[in-house]
């Protein structure tokens, strides 16, 4: 399983996203290193198909696929938690489901 965390330093959310991701990988007994990819400019954002920070991909697939037409740019992603609240990081249960699907 390949696990990537793409991030941009204009958003303070990636440490929390990384901590959630690593905790869930441990809990799910998945022995995978998280590859951290810093996105530094708009050109790289387009090249990496980066819809915002943080973005988590497992085996190349975004765990929360962005909406159609979502631009690739240096921005902070808006996630919805399962209780409807807006959050800068994905719901941990969405991360867990994605890990289980990829196993």
């Amino acid at each position, binding site marked *: 399983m390949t696990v990537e965390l793409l991030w941009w330093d*204009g*958003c*303070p*959310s990636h440490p929390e996203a990384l901590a959630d991701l690593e905790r869930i990988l441990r809990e799910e007994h998945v022995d995978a290193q998280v590859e951290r990819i810093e996105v530094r400019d*708009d050109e790289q954002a387009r090249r990496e198909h980066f819809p915002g920070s943080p973005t988590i991909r497992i085996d190349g697939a975004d765990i929360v696929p962005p909406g159609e037409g979502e631009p690739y*740019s240096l*921005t*902070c*992603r*808006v*996630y919805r938690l399962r209780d409807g*609240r*807006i*959050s*800068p990081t994905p719901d941990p249960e969405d991360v867990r489901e994605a890990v289980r699907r990829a196993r």
Partner: protein
Amino acid sequence: MIGIGDTAPEFDLSDTDGEPAPFETPAVVIFTCNHCPYALAWHDRLMQVARDYKDVHFYAINPNDAERYPRDSFEAMKERVRRDEGWPMPYLHDVSQEVARAYGAKTTPDVFVLDSNEVLRYRGAPDPDHDDPGMNAIWLREALDAVLAGEEVARPETDPVGCSIKWKP
């Protein structure tokens, strides 16, 4: 850039109806935007503070570069206020980014509390946790209570937390 105890710069910006918003104090000046998850997560709490403190003037200011971030365009601001059926504070467009620079705003949100003499008395985050609506903008409310009572603000400065302001190149 201003610090605690400094006189805050006045500004002359228009709201989403194109109407000028007169600068009056005591005031809360909130740099915010449409696209940032931190600003969105704190939004309802900040709106409620504005409803609860009717003797205070509230201003929401969007300073982001709308060329690179179209979700922060003036049209998008208007649409958001319309969709919400109005806000309890004017939503102002800082096209030149001069107001954000004058205040030294760093993030969205970034909150500034001014007393009736236009002096900065609090600057920072609304409360300790964007993720917990129960925090109820407690730092902002504590600052306002102190200012309105003519007392010192116990915690005059906290670190603003949110998305970096999108400056023009």
